[in-house]
Structure formats: C-alpha cells, structure tokens
C-alpha cells in the first residue's frame, strides 16, 4: 500500500454501527493446546459477538496468553479450532488478521526504530491506519515519537504498541494485559480509548488480571482457571451466582440465630454479625425481624470476590 492510499484511508475512518455483524467476532470450539505434558488450554468454548467488550480473566499461567496465541494463529491448536470473523485462525491467519489488531502483554518492538518509525512500519503491514486518530492518541498518551524504542521505558513501549493497535481502527482488538506497565493516568486514557472503540462498534477482547479494569469496561466476563473456562456471563449474572455480604449491628449483644440454608454466619464485633448469603436473602430478613437490628448494610460481591471465590477451590461448579 502506498503512502497516498494510507492517507486516503486515514481521512475517511469508517465507523461501524454496532450490532450489524452476523458472524461472531471470535468463536472457539473445543480449542485445546498441549505443550509437552502440560495441558495449557482445555476444550475452550467461546463466542464473542461483534461490538462486545469481553473480559478474559485469570491468574498468571491460567492460559490467557495461550488463548490469544491460538486466536492469532501463532501457535497451532492441539484440538478444536478458533475462528476470527469466520476465518480459521490457524489456516487463514492473513485473512483473519485483516480484521484485528493485537497488543501483547510485553512490548516486543524493534529497538533501533523510533516510535514514529514503528508506527509507520506497523501501519504499512496492517495496510492503512487512521493517522489523525493516531496523532490524537500520541498526544493523549504523552508519547515522544522521535525517541528510539530502545530508549523507552517499558510503560512507554507499551504505549507505542497500544497506539499502533488502536490507530488501525480494526474491527477486533485483541489486548493481552495491555495496561501492564502503565501509570494510573495512562490507565484512565486507555479506558477512554476502549470506551470509544466500543462506541464505534469495535469488538474488544481484553485479557487481564486487573479486576477493576474489567469491571469498568466489560460487557461480559469469562474466568479461566488452569486452562478451563470455569465461569462466564455478564457481571450481573456472575454476581447473582456468587454470595452477597450482609452486615448487621444490633442494639445490645448479637443474638443467636437458627441455622439457615445457604447462609454462613461470622462474628463481626461484640454486637455485629456478617452473613454470606448465596441465593435468596428472604429467610435471613425474616429471621432478623425478631431481633433489635440497629443497622443493616448489604453489598453485592465485587468482581474480586467472585474471582477469589473461583480460586479458593470451592468455586468450580463442575462447569467446563
């Protein structure tokens, strides 16, 4: 692609209305990857719709990066298949890559190129980017484009990658822990960019272990543990399935309550109790009605609690 064409693409960014894509952006069917004796990914079933922001959660070594490498066709699946906008990720990587941009967890760039040169190179490889948006991003992320990559800190190299990927305006953004190394201000800038991308109808696959980020941005969340997707759904669905916390203080000493199904009781002070309730809160309210309740607070579980719930060993509800 010539520089002229690049400019032409740049002057007319093509926003896509959300929801007008029949094919799912990402589809994984029985996707598995084995490295020697380690099963890194175990029969993953995944469907991410066009225009969706999908949070992919899991601790280190749970298979997040493996999933992304399979989606990019960098590694070959041991079983199953992955599709990106209908293109087989392994067999037709070039066709699939025309629809996506990728940000790796570690910034792997060419040390001798400056940021501006890196942008140009990656833009040529991708075949056209939104130059005006890229300039806006350079300003927003406060990057010095004339500095060589070798002289940049890890956070700044991460910015180079992010800007290059976002400026493609690709239909799908594959982001592997994109904010590692960014300072809190830049993290805010990053969130703004994801929200903009979503408004334009772009699909975002956000692998992360920063729960607040996922909570703030994602429509749906999948939780990965030891290569298996152990839970998936909207945040509300996940909350519903997890326990919520109710804290009660009493006028006078805390009473002894009868044992209730689905309710765990802990002492929270001389005249206070904490209840972990899974399922309906009704029976607990009925039981409390007979006692002198001074204050009652209830709070939905944070994503962190859902997450920890899945990793303390009791959270696997037998789902694959």
């Amino acid at each position, binding site marked *: 692609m010539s520089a002229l064409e690049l400019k032409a693409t740049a002057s007319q960014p093509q926003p896509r209305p959300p929801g007008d894509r029949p094919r799912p952006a990402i589809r994984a069917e029985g996707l598995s990857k084995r490295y020697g004796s380690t099963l890194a990914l175990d029969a993953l079933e995944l469907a991410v719709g066009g225009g969706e922001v999908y949070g992919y959660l899991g601790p280190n070594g749970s298979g997040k990066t493996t999933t992304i*490498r399979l989606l*990019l066709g*960098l*590694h*070959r699946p041991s079983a199953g298949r992955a599709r990106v906008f209908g293109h087989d990720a392994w067999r037709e*990587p*070039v*066709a699939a*890559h*025309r629809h*996506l*941009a*990728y940000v*790796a967890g*570690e910034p*792997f*760039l*060419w*040390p*001798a190129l*400056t940021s*501006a*040169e890196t942008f*140009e*190179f*990656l833009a*040529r*490889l*991708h*075949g056209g980017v939104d130059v005006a948006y890229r300039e806006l991003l350079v300003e927003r992320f406060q990057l*010095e*484009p*004339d*500095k*060589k990559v*070798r*002289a940049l800190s890890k956070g700044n190299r991460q910015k180079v*990658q992010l800007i290059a990927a976002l400026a493609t305006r690709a239909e799908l953004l*594959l982001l592997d822990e994109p904010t590692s190394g960014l300072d809190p201000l830049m993290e805010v800038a990053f969130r703004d960019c994801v929200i903009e991308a979503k408004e334009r109808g772009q699909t975002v696959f956000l692998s992360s272990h920063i729960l607040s980020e996922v909570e703030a941005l994602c429509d749906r969340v999948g939780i990965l543990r030891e290569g298996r997707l152990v839970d998936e759904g909207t945040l509300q669905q996940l909350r519903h399935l997890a326990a919520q916390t109710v804290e009660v203080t009493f006028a006078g000493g805390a009473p002894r309550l009868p044992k209730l199904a689905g309710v765990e009781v802990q002492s929270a002070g001389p005249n206070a109790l904490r209840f972990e309730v899974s399922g309906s809160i009704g029976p607990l309210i009925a039981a409390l009605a007979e006692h002198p309740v001074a204050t009652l607070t209830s709070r939905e579980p944070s994503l962190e609690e859902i997450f920890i719930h899945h990793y303390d060993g009791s959270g696997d509800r037998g789902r694959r």
Partner: protein
Amino acid sequence: MRTISFLYLFALYAYTQAVGYRDGYPTLADRMGFARTFANNKAVRLFYGEPHDLLSVSGYVAWRVGGTLAIAAAVFGLLAAVRALRTEEDAGRQELVLAGVVSRHTAYLSSLAAIGIGTVLLWAGESAGFLAGGLPLGGAMYLSLATASIVPVSAGAGALASQLAPTRRMALELGGALVGLWLLLRVIADTAGGVGWLRWGTPLGWAELLRPFAGAQPLVLVLPAITSVALLAIAGRIGARRDIGTGVLREHDSAAPRLRLLSSPAAQALRSERASLLVWLGSVGAFACVLGAVAKSSSTAGISKSLNRELGKLGTGSITTPSGYLGFTFIFFVLVVSLFACAQVGAARHEEAEQRLETLLSTPVARRRWLGGRLAIAAAGAVAISLTAGLAAWVGAVSGGAEVSLAKLLEAGANCLPVALLFLALAALAYAIVPRASGAIAYGLLAVAFLWDLVGSLLGAPRWLVRLTPFEHIGLVPAQPFRAGDAAAMLAIALAAALAATWIFTRRDLTGA
C-alpha cells in the same frame, strides 16, 4: 556447551593432523619435498601461518595445527567474553545478579574465572590430542600453550568491546573486526616478503613467534600476558564506572523519523541488517584485495607428479601459479560467505526468539512471505559479498602485477554461491525444525563440512565419505573449470531444503528464547 564443542574440535584436530602427517609423509625425503614446494606456498600460509620446521611430525603439527587453532582460540575468547560480559546485560539478567548481594567487581572476576577455566580446558584438550597423536609431553603442552595464550588476549578484546558497545551484536562486530585485523596482519606477515616484523603486532603472530618445536622462545609469552591483563583491567575499570545497560559508545536515543525501508517485512529486515552487511562487504573486500595483491609472488617452480598427488590428499589442487593460488584462497571465501548465510538465518531466529516476530505476524503478513523475504535478503547479501570478493581480489591482483582477468575472478566469486546457498537453506531447515538449536546445528554443520574437507582425505577415509562435504565439490576457479554439474546439484538441494523449511515453518508454533 560451546566450550565442549571447542574442546572436541581442538583435541580431534590436534590428533588427526599429527597422525595424518606421519602416515602421509613417512620419510625424510617426502617431507623435504613437501617443505620445498607446498609449505612455502603463500596460499597455504594463509590458513596455517609460517612454518619453522617441517622435517619432523612435531614441527609440521606446530605449523599446521598451531596456525589454524590459533584462529579458533581467538574466536573462542571473543565469544566467551562477550557472552559473559555483554549478552547477559543486554538481556537484562545482569541487573538481577547485581541487584543481589554480588558486587560488580565480584561479578566481573567470576566471569573472568569462567573464561579462565575454559582456556585451561582447551589447553588440556589440545595437549591430549597431541599426546594421543604421539608427540612428546613437554612439546605438546608448550605448543598447546601457544594456542591457548591467545584466548586471554581475545577475551580481553571481547571484554573491552563489551564495555564500549551497548548491544551484544555491536560488541561481537567490534571484537570480530579486531580479530579479523589480527588475522590480516598475520597473513600479510606470513605471505608478503620483508614484512615479517608485522608478526609482532598481532597476538596470532605471537603464537608463531613462540616457535614451538623449532627453537622455542617462551619469553614471547610476556606479550600476551601483559596485553590481556591490560585489556581486562581497562575493561574492568570502565565496567565499574558506567551505568548498567549502557555502553561507552552510546547511540543517539532520538532521531527524526526516516521512513525508508519500512514498506514490508523484507524491507525492514534489510534496514536492520544494513550495517552488518556493510561490515561483511568491507572486511571481505579488504581481505580479498590483500590476497590478490600477493598472488603474483606465488612460486612458479614445477612440482613433480607424485608430490602433486600428495598435495591432492591434503585437499588442494595445483597451487603454485597465481591463478592456482587464487583458486585455493577462494575456498576461504566459500567458508566466509557460508558463515554470512548462517548468520542471516541466525538473525531471523533472533527476531523470533525476542518475540518481535509475534508482533509482526499478528498483522496480515503470511509466514511464508516473511521467511521468504529474509532468505531472499540473505541470498542477495551472499551474492553481493561473493562478487565483492571477486572484484577486490582482481583489483589486488592487478595492482600486484598478476595477469588475471576480471571475468575469471568474478566467476571465482560466484563460485562461492552454490555452497553458501546450500548452507543458507540447510540453516533455514534447521531453523524451521528445531528453532532453539538452529544456530548450533548450522554453524556445527558448516565447521564439520569444512574441517572434513581439510582432514578427511588425510585420514584415508573412503572416497565417498570424503565427498560428502560440499567443499569437495567446488572447482577451484580460476585454476580449474567451474563445476556446473555439482553446482546445479547443490542448488537443487538448496532449493528443496528452502521449500521444505518454509513448509515446515508455516506449520509450527512460534518459539520464544
């Protein structure tokens, strides 16, 4: 791992040469003839240095083994020092070590100790090879010491280069240029008349001046001792003062964007290999020019048929005319261009090991296109270097007064290509199949093929076994005709291997370091 490979090389080479000469030239008369015609030839001195005494097995071995292993020892010291003192830092691991309770001083000294152990191992290995070949103990150890004495000096050069250069690659290029200069000085001192004193200016010459088995001059050992201590001390001093992760030669951290050579993966690869390609072209050109310039002074004395046959055994042709001499020296360029080809595949592998290839291949670029582009650049670079060698040798030869045509020497240059392209394709195949071990396999294969050509026939191995090495299939252009059939066969194998490499590479996982 690498030390062990060098150890084998030293021990085996020492052994085979000693045994080979005893069997090949059993009588004094044989050896007299050998000394008169063969050993005084400039082309042979190019590889092996200056002979002092060829009438005994020991004297022959001192010349033949000492000269070549001296070069290997210089390479070993350089590689070991850069690996310990720059590669670790380049990769960020040194930072972890120094963040612990280890001081810079201790870290430096322990790196040097490791190199020291490697040196002693090589000394022992070479001595053992000579002993097995029937040399006396004292002489074997002294001769090996002459070789091993080069290691600390080249390690000192490597240590200094590691302090000056901010990256591993630049350190290797700096150090390599210095070792190349040492070799060039030795070659000039050994081949051109009246400049023998130049030997004092190069550590490779000092090893000759030690005169093992020919009136030993152990006092010369003072030179490598002083030089290596000085180099290592300077390097240590710089290392203690500079910031970790930097070098004295700092490149500019900022630059106005230069957007040329960024339009495709191949263009960008050319951009990143440009500097190193220029270094190769420059050094090959300089070397070829010097070798061409001394072509005229090749001995033209007739040699007997029987001796010619004996020379054939040593893997050489008729080398007593300028064109014969040039034909023989171009074997050296076949080796050099093949090394370049392997290094290019190494650069491609480095791109993958550093995971930049993941960034590149996540864009709409097919793997086939990327690897094809890299191989095309490597092949084009090999063509450029080969023709430069031919051209520069012609310039040198003509200025030295020899009558050789430019066309013939360009043909000699092009004659390097079948073997070089074969090794390019084989290296690519190794890269596709076993990425992590590909460098060791490619360089190992090349070294074995070349050494087998030197010693195979000497050992009396069956003809078919000797002919397995591609180096046996080169016509010594311009003295001999270009062997079109062999060249076509090698190119066909190269093409098949390159296609197989591409096919396999598109079917495997990308593999990090």
